[in-house]
C-alpha cells in the first residue's frame, strides 16, 4: 500500500474526514499520523475533522497515540471518531468523545439534507454502523451486525442482521435489500418480525410502513 493510500483526507463540505486504512500495522499508523500532522498542518489547523478508523479497534494506547501524534500537534478541531467496532465505540463514548457522524446544528438541518453514507464493505457480526442520513451498504450485513440510520437504508448484498431505518422516529423511512434474509426489520418506531417461509425470502425487497403495518414487497425495477 502506498503512503497516499494509508491515510486519506477527504473534504465533506465544511469538515474534513481523515480515513485510516484498516490493514495498516500499528507501527505504520504511528508513522503515518506523524507524517500527516507535519505535512498537512496548514490544512488541519482549526479545521473540523472526523477521524474514520473503519473496522479497526481503538484501545487506550491507540487513543493516546492518535492524540499525541496527530490531534494535538496539528491543532485540528476533533469533531468525532468513527469505527465499526462496537467495543471501541463504547470505549470512546466512555472517554467523553463524540462517536459516529457528528450531529448537525438545527439551522443546517433545515437548509440541507443530511449527507448519505456509502459503505463499500460488508458488516460482520458485532459491527455496527450509525449514521444521521441515508445509508447504502455495498456488501452484506451479516447475522449479528447492525445498521442504524435516521434516513433510508439500502443493502446491495444479503441482509441477515438488524437494520433500523428512521431511527429517530421517522416512519416514512424505507429499507431496500437485494437479498432479504433478516428475521427482523425496524422502521421508525415499529419493529417487524419476518418469516423464513415468506415468498420474498431471499429476494430483493422494499420495506416500508403502510398505516399501522410494515409492508414487505418484492422489489422490481
Amino acid at each position: 500500500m502506498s503512503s497516499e493510500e494509508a491515510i486519506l483526507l477527504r473534504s465533506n463540505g465544511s469538515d474534513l474526514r481523515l480515513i485510516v486504512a484498516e490493514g495498516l500495522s500499528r507501527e505504520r499508523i504511528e508513522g503515518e499520523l506523524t507524517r500527516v500532522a507535519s505535512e498537512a498542518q496548514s490544512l488541519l489547523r482549526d479545521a473540523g475533522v472526523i477521524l474514520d478508523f473503519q473496522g479497526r479497534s481503538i484501545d487506550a494506547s491507540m487513543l493516546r497515540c492518535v492524540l499525541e501524534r496527530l490531534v494535538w500537534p496539528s491543532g485540528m478541531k476533533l469533531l468525532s471518531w468513527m469505527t465499526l467496532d462496537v467495543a471501541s465505540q463504547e470505549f470512546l463514548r466512555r472517554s467523553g468523545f463524540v462517536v459516529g457522524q457528528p450531529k448537525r446544528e438545527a439551522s443546517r438541518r433545515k437548509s440541507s439534507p443530511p449527507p448519505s453514507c456509502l459503505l463499500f464493505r460488508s458488516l460482520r457480526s458485532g459491527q455496527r454502523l450509525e449514521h444521521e442520513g441515508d445509508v447504502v451498504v455495498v456488501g452484506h450485513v451479516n447475522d449479528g451486525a447492525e445498521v442504524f440510520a435516521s434516513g433510508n437504508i439500502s443493502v446491495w448484498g444479503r441482509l441477515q442482521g438488524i437494520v433500523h431505518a428512521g431511527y429517530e422516529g421517522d416512519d416514512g423511512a424505507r429499507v431496500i435489500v437485494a437479498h432479504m434474509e433478516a428475521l427482523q426489520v425496524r422502521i421508525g418506531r415499529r419493529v417487524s418480525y419476518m418469516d423464513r417461509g415468506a415468498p420474498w425470502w431471499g429476494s430483493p425487497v422494499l420495506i416500508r410502513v403502510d398505516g399501522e403495518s410494515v409492508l414487505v414487497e418484492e422489489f422490481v425495477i
Partner: protein
Amino acid sequence: MIQRVIVLTSGKGGVGKTTTTANLAVALARGGHKVVAIDADIGLRNLDVVLGLENRIVYSLVDVIEGSCRLKQALVKDKRVENLFLLPAAQTRTKDAVKPEQMKALCDELREDFDFVLVDSPAGIEGGFQNAASGADEALVVSTPDMSAVRDADRIIGMLESLGKSPIRLIVNRLRPNMVREGNMLDVSDVLDILAIDLIGVVPEDDNVVTSTNKGEPLTLNSTSPAARAFDNISRRLIGEEVPLLDVESLASTGFMARIRRAFGFKG
C-alpha cells in the same frame, strides 16, 4: 524461513481448536519445522492432554510471565517428535493472570527460536482471546458447519481484522458429507459465502479423533485416517505447498458465490 506466530481461534467452544492445534503442531514438526504450541486457555488447559504431555508439566506460561522460571524451563519437549514443544497453561490461575503486552513479549521471544509458534486460543471474545491474539501475526479460524459456530466465527474474524491480523484463514472442521448431501448440514460453500475468507482446509468428522484425544496421540503422529490426512494437508498448505483438497473438501465452491464475495471486497 520467516518465523510465524499463528493464533487458532473460533469464538465458539467445542469446535476443535485444541485438536487442530495439536495435530497441526505435530504435522509441522514431522515436516522438519521447529514448533512450539502454546496453550493460552489459562485455567482450563487441554492441549497438554491432547498432545499426551500432561504428566511432564512442571512450569506454566504464567510462571514464565511472572518470572518464576525461565522460558526454557517451562517448555515441554515431545519425545516422539523431534522439534515439537509445548508451553502449557496454568490450571490453577485465571485468564486475568496474563496481559496482552506480556503475551506479545512472550511470543516475540519464542519467535527467535522457533519456525512456528501456534497459539491455542480459549473460546469467547474476552480477555483470553485478546491475550492469545495479541502476539500473533496471522490467524486460523476453526468453525464447524453449523449456524451458531459460523456466526461466532464471523464475529471473531471481524475482531481479528480490527486487530490487523493477516492472513486470516478458515478451517471447516467436523464436516459430515452425508448430512450435507441430505441438506441437514451447511455445505462448505455456504460457510465460505458467509465468512468470506480464504479456506485452508476441510476436516471430515472422524471417530479416530476421539480415540486419539483420549490416548494423547494426535492423529498426525502416525494415522492415515481421513482427519489425519486433512490436518497433514493443512500443515503443508501453511508452508505454501499447493495441495489439492481431499474428496470431502471438493464440496468447497470456487464458483458463483466466491465471485460475488470478491465483488463485495472480501479478501479471498
